[in-house]
């Protein structure tokens, strides 16, 4: 015997199957990114073109390292979940599923690469005496 009624199980789910979860997550992460992006753009923009030592010492600073890590994690999740929207519109069936998996994978690879590079630069920064 099922304790949940059919209606109870359907409420809030809609055509997506997950209700408003996706939309809400995109909105929440958008707000987070909106607060972080301007400062981060300034840091990246002023560091781009500098020599390697300056790049490492900049990205090994606690504030810059934490901000960049947050941008990498939240930004790449926002990207991956965002691509689902156009994929659902233009690519259907197995191809659509495969493309979604590919986009999520790409986002995770970029996220992990950024965190690896940051971690390594923080260590080098410590050795350089930052």
């Amino acid at each position: 015997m099922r304790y949940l009624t059919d209606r109870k199980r359907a409420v809030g789910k809609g055509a997506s199957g997950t209700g408003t979860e996706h939309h809400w997550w995109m909105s929440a992460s958008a707000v987070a990114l909106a607060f972080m992006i301007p400062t981060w753009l300034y840091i990246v923009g002023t560091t781009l073109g500098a020599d390697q030592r300056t790049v490492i010492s900049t990205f090994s600073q606690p504030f810059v390292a934490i901000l960049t890590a947050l941008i990498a994690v939240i930004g790449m999740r926002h990207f991956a979940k965002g691509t689902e929207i156009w994929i659902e519109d233009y690519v259907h069936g197995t191809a659509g599923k495969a493309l979604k998996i590919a986009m999520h994978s790409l986002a995770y690879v970029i996220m992990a690469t950024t965190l690896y590079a940051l971690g390594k630069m923080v260590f080098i920064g410590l050795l350089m005496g930052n």
Partner: protein
Amino acid sequence: MAEAKQVARPLSPHLQIYRPQMTSFSSIMTRITGNGIIVGVLLLVWWLLAAATSPDYFNFVNAIATSWFGDLVFTLSLLGLWYHYLAGIRHLIFDTGKYMDIKSAEMLGWISTIGSVVLTILTLIIIHL
């Protein structure tokens, strides 16, 4: 009841004869910019990885990142990012139920479009000071 007959109906909307509107333009641009930024992100992350790897590798990637090609990719990504940023705020405003009428929606679309160009130029000026 007559048998249901398959009629070859035209698909809507007909993009070729559809007059371009600010609301459809801003919707399409939000998608294109959101996805397009990944090109700039890839170049930037490659550059970060190179900085953490070795002097030789950094010099190689840094030369690409600071070349005319790198400048082009990063400038277009910056423009795309600011557009997506403003268009995202526009959607957060829509979510509150305000400015949903056509006139206001079109106005916010224009603000996003012109604002993204202004913010891109402003960013380029500030980071080069």
